[in-house]
């Protein structure tokens, strides 16, 4: 029988070396062909060296271990290594993959080795598409809404957190962004912003204004029925146009 070969990927050196050492003592016949420090390196290593097993740290710079397994699906068996079980790792056990929690213990690694040996006999490599999909969903997601606004300011680019913005107002070619620190001009249009911002937090209140609902202190209503928005710690007001008055009806 040809020797079983593996690669290890982890961005932290001590952890890489530790796993390598443990494997060599618990599974001396296993040949560790190489170690990778990030996801992309791991992927090219899998493609070039065609190992039987890849031990992949889940959080690595660039590509996560899950991304690597998705991209190299079917190429080899995967064992995920992670510092804690935030990724609903019990899913691994039901499916044909395995996982290790750091710090890796001898007992746990022995179990994994036994399972890997069994699986290596039963070819072919199982299809992991389903479980990997579920795992990526469990990974912390980048929010899909705009969280930061970049604005040219003096000779640099200011990064303004969406939470700090009181309102956006359309002015000629630009859009004015109002924060506690002052006003900034950006090129994005209100229409574009409306699509990208979190609609639960940012409300269109006027043809020319979007407001951060979290920073509204109160909405005054005049005898004529015009609603005016007032903010915490800010002298500026915004008028609500009739078309959007329904947003504040119950307030």
């Amino acid at each position, binding site marked *: 029988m040809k020797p079983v070969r593996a690669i290890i990927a982890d961005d*932290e050196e001590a*952890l890489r*070396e530790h796993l390598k050492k443990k494997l060599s003592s618990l599974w001396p016949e296993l040949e560790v062909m190489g170690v990778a420090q990030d996801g*992309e390196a791991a992927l090219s290593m899998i493609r070039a060296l065609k190992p039987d097993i890849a031990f992949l740290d889940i959080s690595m710079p660039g590509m996560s271990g899950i991304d690597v397994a998705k991209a190299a699906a079917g190429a080899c068996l995967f064992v995920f290594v992670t510092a*804690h079980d935030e990724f609903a790792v019990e899913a691994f056990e039901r499916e044909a993959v395995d996982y290790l929690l750091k*710090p890796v213990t001898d007992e746990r690694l022995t179990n994994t080795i036994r399972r890997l040996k069994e699986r290596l006999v039963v070819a072919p490599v199982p299809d992991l598409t389903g479980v990997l999909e579920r795992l990526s969903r469990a990974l912390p997601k980048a929010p899909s809404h705009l969280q930061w606004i*970049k604005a040219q300011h003096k000779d640099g680019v200011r990064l303004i*957190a969406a*939470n700090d913005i009181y309102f956006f107002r359309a002015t000629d070619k630009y859009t004015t962004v109002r924060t506690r620190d002052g006003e900034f001009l950006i090129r994005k249009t209100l229409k574009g912003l409306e699509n*990208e911002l979190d609609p639960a937090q940012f409300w269109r209140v006027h043809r020319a204004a979007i407001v951060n609902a979290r920073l509204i202190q109160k909405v005054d209503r005049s005898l004529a029925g015009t609603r005016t928005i007032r903010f915490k710690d800010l002298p500026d007001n915004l008028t609500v146009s009739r078309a959007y008055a329904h947003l504040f009806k119950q307030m």
Partner: protein
Amino acid sequence: MIEPLDKREFQQLTLKRFAAWSVLNALINTVIAFIIAGVGLSKGFAVTLIFSQCIGFSIFFSNLAVLPVYQRATRLRTQVLIVAAAVIAGSIIGTLLGALANGFRPIQFFQEHFGYFTQVILFALLFGFVISYIFISLSVISEEKIKRLEVEKAAMEAELRLVQSQMEPHFLFNTLANVRSLIDSDPRRAGDMLETFVAFLRTSLRTSRERTVPLVQELDVVKNYLDLFTMRMGSRLRYKIELPEALRGVRIPPLLIQPLVENAVKHGLEPSIDGGEVTIAAERADGRIRIKVTDSGVGIREAAGGSGIGLDNVRRRLAIMYGELGRLVIEENSPSGVKATIEIPDELKGTTPHHDPLPVPEVGASRRGERR
């Protein structure tokens, strides 16, 4: 009479509350009438009581009328002026109403009983101001109390956040996994790492429990944190701390810089394949202290997460401690990464920054000195 001065109370003006104030107002007016009648400065108790009620309620309603303006005023001086105007207007209207109610014709009353008229107006103003003053003082005290509570709350949140980030599973388990893995292969480094971890826990916990700390102590926490990550990330993380000797003792609220450094490492350098450098630099310029945390990491994408509870807390604590004078500015760093700058007033040049912002004369004096 002028109870509605407390803003928060008044925001929910209910019929019940309005009735309670009216009754209180009527009682105070009656007491005042007794006092004036008692010292013998009146044309009989009934006349005085009618005057007192008319004036009291006029002032009460004037204050109600100016309340929306009052609530929008942010400065104490403006608020006092608004109330003073309301008291004066209320006193005059009340006196005229009182004259009517007592069966005088106002113009005739003004002409024929000028001495009495002045006396009534003076009493109206006197009591109006005294009672307004009492209520304003009470409301100022309650605002100071609210501010103190806000400071305490924000500090507690910062402490809680620290504990959360120390106990954050990824940080905790990864650090311990590193120590564990080094125990066999490199016991010396394992020991060093454990010591650094303990030092980080100890300094950060101690720091979080103070109201303000010297800059050098805060940067100690930062240094331990970065040392720990340097051990983990190896050559991918480099750092530099530039703290001029003269700024070591500058006092800042605790754990103001640490979250910025944490963001730089977590969101800037850890996700970067090549890693990078974090620089923390403090400087004194234009009567202000500036602390910059710069990283050369992956930077912030507009849709990226982590606009963060950490940053919100830093910003809020700056606002509470220093008002307009405390700022947190986040910028893109060139060629890559993020630059976060904290700006606070230089405490050497003013004692209570929030109320007494810029001691301009001193600056002027030192400039003149230089020229000589």
